[in-house]
């Protein structure tokens, strides 16, 4: 199976939230409550156990090249955020029960029938994506429509997206498309356009994201970490240290035994 992912182009996102609803519809997710946040048009706030696509709205006092408005130095950025399906997925690597797996599509999937709700994954996600649901205690996040992929169906969010801001497909194809788009935007004068989490080179802390995005401002502006690091990346280092320590202790133990033997009258 080829590696699959999402490319989300924030420059063509119209903030309609079709992705949020299509996701809820397909996955039959409950609402997140009905709270007016005062944060522009964003009232779902963040990704969570029952919101697997989330559209961020950023009202910026900065102009966007190629965009003139009489309201002044202003632009309104929108981005549909989702689980990144990291190459080095903290949730997956920290899951003690084997509930979280990497699928044949190279996506990260939580098996609800295995998850016991321990919550290790929640603290190990550098993006704060995976979340436990209050009612059943289990961890939930975007499945990248694992159930649909087997039948060659496009994930619900990407299928519904009116402007192709969310594109699903083979990662290699998405990478090529995304790079062309960045180049096109640069040519049009939008030189701040870049890809977030395209690969391990640009984001070593995650090994690259299978769901990567085109942004035009710093990641923090979109409430994304500028330099995310999967905690389990340090596991190898930690295990090596443990091994050295263990070896030392073994040596000391042997030495002690030998020395003891020598010291025995």
């Amino acid at each position, binding site marked *: 199976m080829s590696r699959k992912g999402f490319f989300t182009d924030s420059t063509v996102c119209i903030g309609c939230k079709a992705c949020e609803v299509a996701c809820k519809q397909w996955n039959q997710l409950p609402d997140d409550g009905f709270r007016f946040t005062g944060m522009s048009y964003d009232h779902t706030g963040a990704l969570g156990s029952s919101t697997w696509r989330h559209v961020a709205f950023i009202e910026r006092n900065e102009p966007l090249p190629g965009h003139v408005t009489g309201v002044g130095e202003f632009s309104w950025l929108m981005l549909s955020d989702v689980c990144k399906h990291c190459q080095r997925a903290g949730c*997956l690597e920290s899951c003690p029960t084997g*509930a979280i797996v990497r699928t044949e599509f190279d996506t990260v999937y939580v098996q609800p029938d295995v998850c016991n709700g321990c919550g290790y994954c929640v603290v190990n996600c550098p993006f704060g994506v995976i979340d436990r649901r209050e009612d059943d205690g289990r961890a939930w996040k975007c499945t990248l429509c694992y*159930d649909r992929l*087997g039948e060659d169906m496009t994930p619900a969010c990407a*299928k*519904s997206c*009116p402007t192709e801001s969310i594109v699903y497909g083979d990662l290699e194809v998405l990478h090529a498309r995304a790079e062309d788009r960045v180049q096109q935007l640069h040519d049009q004068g939008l030189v701040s356009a870049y890809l977030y989490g395209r690969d391990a080179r640009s984001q070593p802390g995650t090994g690259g994201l299978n769901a990567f995005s085109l942004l035009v401002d710093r990641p923090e502006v979109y409430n994304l970490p500028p330099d995310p690091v999967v905690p389990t990346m340090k596991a190898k280092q930690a295990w090596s240290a443990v091994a050295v320590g263990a070896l030392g202790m073994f040596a000391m133990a042997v030495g002690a035994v030998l020395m003891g033997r020598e010291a025995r009258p």
Partner: protein
Amino acid sequence: MGVLDLMLRWPVFRQLLRGDATALGDTAMSERSRTLEPRTARADRVVKSVCPYCAVGCGQDVYVKDGRLLDIEGDPDSPISRGRLCPKGAATFQLVTGTHRVHDVLYRRPGGTEWERIPLERAMDMVADRVKRTRDATWEETDVNGLTARRTLGIAHLGGATLDNEENYLIKKLFTALGIVQVENQARI
């Protein structure tokens, strides 16, 4: 179940066989995960439809099994919408299957403070009776100048912009024949 099958269900064996050393891949897949399929795969038919919200006219595929809806999605065949839907269109499944829908005819009597359930047939009879009574009582064969008017201004209608053309046709046809002229709809609002 053969020995091999049994062996294959043993995670460590699978792990070795598939080179999945970290056991983060399909070795850890549960039976449910391995047999997972979209619920639309169970549908016994896919009915072609059109989104009921705005006038873009997005195509919808309605998945049905045993007389119940499984799913409603955008129709990729549509040259207008190309399979896409907005949040409202994407919520159509909830619109038509949600618990907000009322399944009974309700009646509120004059001065009443509560709804009462009544049978559909009886309600239809009651409405037909009201129409006849009001029409007969307010009929104007001529206007104030003695010119032919043949109408009633005692009954009015409002609605139609989310109804089907065929429904609007019967509304206009029957009400006009009854002499009801105050027939209006959202297009005016």
